[in-house]
């Protein structure tokens, strides 16, 4: 295994594009090194991106949008008060992953590129309308987070492409987001169902909403009908019922040791309702 420490994403991309064997990018290593240690994936080229300038930066632009570098850890995100004030749902979603020790290393970009349908931070990012900055042999592009995962462990990224950062849009006035997951214990488990909601209010009325679900389909899914069910409402019982119905209808889960199809489908509706209530209250605060 060759270990590379490029000083730019262009160099990182070039190393990956020229590689002929198994290639992995390394940030926090909480997935990549587990796979290496378990002999599931042994890279021929391991490309550590942490020597690239800016990978640990959390930056707020003048228009209110945010750029979170690919190596920012969960612990670093959880200590950023200004980001928590605007995007508490995204932060609480990443914070749910693993232990204190894992939090010191795990990243939003790693959680996204690992491609797990149960990734906790991904529904929150999709609900937030986040994008991924991608550097590749053809240059750079920015794509919606929901367009990255294509199946369990798979992404739409091409050979040599690497995600350099996650971008969050301007929160704006009266916006709020939330992420909830169901696990059978209180800590350190993989989501049976996850639900992320982000919405904006004008007075008591919701004027925009996005809902994403995790662990109920081969990828985390954006449920446009569920967001649409909230727009124009004051989160009354009718809107909440429509939200839950749309969330349940979007579920294509599997039955496994964590939960059955029926259980996951019902819980998706319940969590979407609860997350919507939290996001609504945060938007009005």
């Amino acid at each position, binding site marked *: 295994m060759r270990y590379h420490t490029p000083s730019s994403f262009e160099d990182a991309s070039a190393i990956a594009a020229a590689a002929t064997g198994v290639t992995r990018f390394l940030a926090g290593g909480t997935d990549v*090194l587990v796979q290496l240690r378990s002999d599931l994936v042994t890279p021929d080229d391991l490309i550590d991106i942490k020597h690239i300038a800016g990978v640990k930066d959390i930056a707020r632009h003048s228009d209110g949008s945010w750029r979170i570098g690919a190596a920012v850890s969960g612990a670093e995100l959880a200590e950023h008060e200004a980001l928590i004030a605007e995007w508490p749902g995204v932060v609480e979603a990443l914070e749910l992953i693993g232990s204190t020790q894992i939090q010191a290393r795990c990243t939003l970009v790693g959680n996204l590129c690992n491609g797990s349908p149960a990734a906790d931070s991904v529904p929150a990012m999709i609900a937030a309308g986040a994008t991924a900055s991608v550097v590749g042999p053809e240059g750079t592009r920015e794509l919606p987070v929901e367009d990255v995962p294509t199946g369990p462990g798979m992404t739409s990224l091409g050979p040599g492409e690497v995600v350099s950062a996650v971008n969050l849009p301007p929160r704006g006035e009266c916006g709020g987001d939330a992420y909830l997951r169901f696990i059978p214990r209180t800590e350190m488990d993989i989501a049976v169902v996850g639900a992320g909601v982000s919405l904006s209010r004008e007075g008591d009325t919701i004027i925009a909403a996005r809902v994403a679900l995790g662990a109920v389909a081969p990828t985390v899914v954006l449920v446009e009908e569920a967001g649409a069910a909230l727009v124009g409402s004051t989160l009354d019982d009718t809107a909440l019922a429509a939200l839950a119905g749309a969330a349940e209808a979007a579920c294509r889960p599997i039955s496994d040791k964590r939960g059955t199809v029926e259980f996951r489908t019902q819980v998706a509706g319940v969590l979407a309702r609860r997350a919507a209530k939290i996001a609504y209250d945060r938007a009005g605060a």
Partner: protein
Amino acid sequence: MIHVSTTVNGDAHELLCDPRETLLDALRDRLELTGAKEGCGTGDCGACTVLLDERPVCSCLVLAAEAEGQEVRTVEGIADGEDLHPLQRKFIEHAALQCGICTPGILVAAKALLERNPDPSETEVRYWLAGNLCRCTGYDKIIRAVLDAASEMREAT
């Protein structure tokens, strides 16, 4: 082999490591710092916990090469010579260990907690240490020892 310059418990070290070598293996086999233990080897149990730039990490999930230019702290750096750290004394007083495999990792993680939060609640201690598994004690004695050490450390300052 990769040349790694790193600082462990305040001492500068130069190491030659295999690219696949973990920080845990480098600490144990090259520096003979055998306090950190390998339990699961996949980041689940916390027995290999060390501080990497002030944050607790599973050293089995860190490559030695990643420690380049970083500051590493292990359980060996907790006591001041023969004087045990309050956490170490309280672990003995409360009998917060049996086999002891998990203890070095728990001490490192607990010390990091008390440096951030000198007055944690029982719930905060339990959540902070959720990534440190212990098969002997049932955790109660560990939690009591950490809370008692925190209390003593607050009184001392």
